[in-house]
């Protein structure tokens, strides 16, 4: 855990009862902030990361030395303008960037938790992150924003804490994880578990890493973040540094080489068990369950103003699932805007330079902010 010693974190003393029944306390929650909190503490935004994200949304991630995952959207003068807003991002519990996760040392055994780590849910993640509001003494957030699993956290946050966010922007997400998405996550998990080095999840104490399994999981998932049209346009049938097919199982095609590369760099920054735990949390996500299948009821007590965004080529969290959230909110007369942005970049659109998307976020935030000032 030494590599995380210089990053910001709070130790949450308050016990958190997890959905699985276990209670945790004194657990670390790693976070990063961008911008300055104003004097009346009214400009705070909490952003939530997706499956493989972390608290380092903007600038350079000090651990991986790579660009933050939301550099296009977050920063000075950008859609989420850090000259104007104070942005809090934290690493979800179950993650591997300093928050309480399966590679933490279990004080009872003095060994990493591995698969003895409790199964966590989106609800648990959000409840843990809520402690940052107390830490920063923020009575009400100006906005909660997130894409993909981050969007699920936005929905869960508003449902759990109906009057703690003035506005909410769930992006490219769903209120209930679909069978297709559970299937795709299971594919990734089985790939990790099929790697001999996984060792039932106790690979760290044996100094092993299920890199191959994790890389394949990432390759499969990466395809789901793109669109057919986008892939065809970028790669087509182009060959990788060769004039003709080699009649072997080398990466003849650029797309193969690209995916192999994506898999190989991923294992350097992500923990296999975290991948299992976080995908599980996504699969368990069904905001309607507690409300007898009626999503509207999840938001009944909220006065949060929503803006929901989906992308035309996103087949992982398609417009129809985003629209279901809009319908649920309209059915109870809540304030909600919705746009489907044209983009051929698939689910990943929310992370990329998609001007209509970035403008939408920017204008919605700026107008809403003017209304409270």
């Amino acid at each position, binding site marked *: 855990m030494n590599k995380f010693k210089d990053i910001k974190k709070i130790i949450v003393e308050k016990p958190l009862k997890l959905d699985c029944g276990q209670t945790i306390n004194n657990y670390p929650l790693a976070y990063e902030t961008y911008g300055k909190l104003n004097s009346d503490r009214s400009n705070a935004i909490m952003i939530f990361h997706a499956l493989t994200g972390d608290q380092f949304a903007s600038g350079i991630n000090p651990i991986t030395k790579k660009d933050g995952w939301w550099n296009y959207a977050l920063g000075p003068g950008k859609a989420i303008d850090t000259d104007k807003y104070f942005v809090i991002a934290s690493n979800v519990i179950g993650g591997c960037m300093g928050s309480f996760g399966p590679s933490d040392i279990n004080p009872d055994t003095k060994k990493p938790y591995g698969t003895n780590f409790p199964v966590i849910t989106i609800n648990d993640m959000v409840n843990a992150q809520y402690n940052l509001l107390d830490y920063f003494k923020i009575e009400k957030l100006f906005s909660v924003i997130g894409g993909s699993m981050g969007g699920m956290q936005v929905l869960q946050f508003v449902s759990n804490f109906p009057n703690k966010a003035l506005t909410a922007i769930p992006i490219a997400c769903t209120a209930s994880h679909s069978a297709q998405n559970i299937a795709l996550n299971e594919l990734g998990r089985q790939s990790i578990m099929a790697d001999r080095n996984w060792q039932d999840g106790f690979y760290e104490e044996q100094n092993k890493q299920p890199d191959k399994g994790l890389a394949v999981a990432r390759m499969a998932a990466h395809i789901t973040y793109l669109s057919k049209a986008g892939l065809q346009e970028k790669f087509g049938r182009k060959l990788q540094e060769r004039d003709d097919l080699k009649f072997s199982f080398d990466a003849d095609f650029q797309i193969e080489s690209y995916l192999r590369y994506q898999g190989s760099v991923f294992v350097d920054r992500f923990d296999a068990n975290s991948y299992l735990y976080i995908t599980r949390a996504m699969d368990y996500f069904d905001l309607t369950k507690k409300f007898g299948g009626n999503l509207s009821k999840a938001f009944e007590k909220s006065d949060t103003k929503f803006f929901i965004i989906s992308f035309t080529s996103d087949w992982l969290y398609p417009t129809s699932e985003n629209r279901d959230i809009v319908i649920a909110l*309209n059915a*109870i007369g809540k304030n909600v*805007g919705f746009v489907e942005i044209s983009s051929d970049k698939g689910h990943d659109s929310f992370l990329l330079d998609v001007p209509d998307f970035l403008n939408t976020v920017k*204008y919605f935030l*700026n107008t809403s902010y003017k209304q409270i000032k």
Partner: protein
Amino acid sequence: MKKEFYNIAKLVTQNSKILDVGCGNGELMKYITENISKDIRGIELSKSNIQKCVEKGLTVIEGNAEKDLRQFPDSSFDFVILSQTLQAFLDPENVLNELLRIGKKAIVSIPNFGHWKVRLHLLLKGTMPVTKNLPNEWYNTPNLHMCTIKDFENYCKERDIKINIKNLKFHNFFSELGIFILEK
């Protein structure tokens, strides 16, 4: 802003809850937000128009009035506005029913096919009328169900839809546009 929009804006009351169906680039919504009521949102089909609404900081829902009005509960708005789009729907009767269900009042404007210029155009030229309010040719017009002010009044009468106010200082012959407040 179009004169029609000023006339529509005059019909909504202060701080009422309003839905603008087919809100276009948000011009009317912006005017109402700034001058009459902030509690207004729009539904729009065209992505480029939606971006224009977003840039104006308006609440807009991307959607199709023919199928997306059903998500709103009964009487959820004080006013539902439909400006010059009724004639372009596949099923205008259904849309009107929905407007009257979700709105306590519906403000509907229609281009009047009974206007004297339209009548004269057809009479003299023998071709489909092209006017300021009906700028398209027959082969590219989005208007599927043209009617006259008189047709619309008859329609409402047959269905016991109350016409509360019409803007019409003119009538079927002299108005290019009919603006009505309807109530069920």
